[in-house]
């Protein structure tokens, strides 16, 4: 995996990028196009043929419709699913994960590497001390099920800001999981207020089956992008060094990288 080295010259702002400035860097579609940033419209790897053409149409259409960065619907407490389902990997069996689980994740930490000014690791407590966001949203599995839960976590922008802010070259954030899964999202979703690193579900600690100690919530994309059991984060300008280079394990398999539909 590539861990891009961060040269001082790559940071434009000497000060940490504020959330406001981070958000302002992706104001709307017009702004994106004006700055030559087509990332929000086109997936990092465009597949061939008719399927690839449809991918681009789907992504650019939805991103155009979401140019003002609307929130995914937030529900009432009474809408919360009685028993939030677990799916896919529900308890990674590798030694590393089991050790952290048995220790209550006190020695677990999340390294944030790549194109941030001050690469560093965050313990679970440090993440919990960052400003938090709680949102009652529907998890939409690409398989067809959906369930409403109350997620609590640190907005990704807060985490990146605490690491000194991202450099202007940053295009994607890659999430590596302890079950060897990985996924990536582009800056359009990185800066969205509902994109959080969740450590809580329905007022409790995040259960193991739902991705303890930390999972990604990217509410405007399907379940497969909401990666569980986070191990580390890389802020990158290219996805080439990860897996087969498509930007996620599911897209390496053959799913569309963009999970908006």
């Amino acid at each position: 995996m590539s861990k891009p080295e961060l040269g001082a010259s790559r940071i434009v702002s000497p000060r940490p990028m504020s959330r406001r400035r981070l958000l302002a860097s992706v104001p709307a579609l017009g702004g994106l196009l004006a700055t030559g940033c087509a990332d929000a419209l086109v997936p990092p790897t465009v597949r061939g043929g008719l399927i690839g053409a449809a991918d681009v149409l789907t992504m650019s259409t939805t991103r155009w419709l979401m140019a003002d960065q609307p929130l995914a619907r937030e529900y009432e407490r009474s809408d919360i699913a009685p028993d939030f389902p677990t799916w896919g990997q529900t308890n990674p069996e590798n030694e590393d994960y089991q050790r952290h689980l048995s220790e209550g994740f006190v020695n677990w930490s999340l390294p944030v590497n790549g194109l941030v000014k001050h690469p560093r690791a965050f313990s679970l407590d440090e993440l919990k001390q960052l400003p938090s966001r709680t949102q009652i949203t529907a998890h939409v599995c690409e398989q067809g099920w959906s369930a409403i839960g109350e997620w609590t976590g640190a907005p990704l922008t807060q985490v990146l800001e605490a690491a000194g802010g991202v450099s202007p070259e940053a295009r994607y954030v890659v999430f590596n999981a302890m079950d060897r899964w990985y996924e990536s999202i582009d800056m359009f979703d990185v800066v969205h207020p509902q994109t959080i690193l969740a450590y809580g579900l329905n007022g409790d600690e995040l259960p193991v089956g739902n991705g303890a100690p930390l999972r990604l919530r990217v509410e405007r994309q399907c379940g497969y992008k909401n990666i569980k059991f986070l191990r580390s984060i890389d802020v990158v300008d290219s996805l080439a060094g990860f897996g087969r280079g498509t930007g996620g394990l599911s897209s390496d398999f053959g799913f569309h990288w963009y999970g908006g539909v």
Partner: protein
Amino acid sequence: MTSERSPAGVGASVILHSYNVRICHWINVIAGGYLLLSGIHIFLDFPELYWGHTGYQGYPALFKLSDWGLSWDEAGALGNRMWGRNYHFTFAWVFLINGLVYVAWSLARGHVWRRLLPGRTELAPASLKADLVEHLRGPAQERAAATSYGPLQKLSYSLLIFVFVPVMLLTGLAQAPAFAAAWPWLLDLFGGRQSARTLHAAGTVLFVLFVLVHVMEVLLAGAVNRVRSMITGKFRLPEEEM
């Protein structure tokens, strides 16, 4: 059709379907076929239907395929949601663009008003009843010779194009988290993502029924002549005087 105003001779041919109708029709056959097949793949990977915003295994379901003899695991082994999703969304675009071209052309050329939409008199109960009786009696000579749509045909094609397809499109979009974020009214319109999914599945059944009836009608009304008229446009007027 010109043939109605200037009666053609016995056994003469007319161009029944314009090139636009013919091209759009066959693109629709391909896109509709892929949409159906890929939709079934997606469904088989989660063969239960619910109502409202929430639905998952163990949640009260409206429909379970396992109640109909195919277990969860058997269905899952048949369905490939990755293939299904890739092709469903691809041919949804083909279907949509093709449909927009067809509707735009049909509006511009007056096809919608002249040939497609039923008139007020055609929609009268007596007219629809008479048409239905004629259909149920079997393939009448007049139907084999028909060069314009009958009242029930106009009604079903119009409902298909202007009601059914938009509802299928919107119930599909309502299931997508990005579209639901951009257009939250989609969720309200159908009462939730799972309701939209259920309506989408019910619509699939209607679509299959439409195709079955449509193909049966073509076979009954002169299979070779009808199919040729949708390929080359040429339709041979039957021996019977019109």
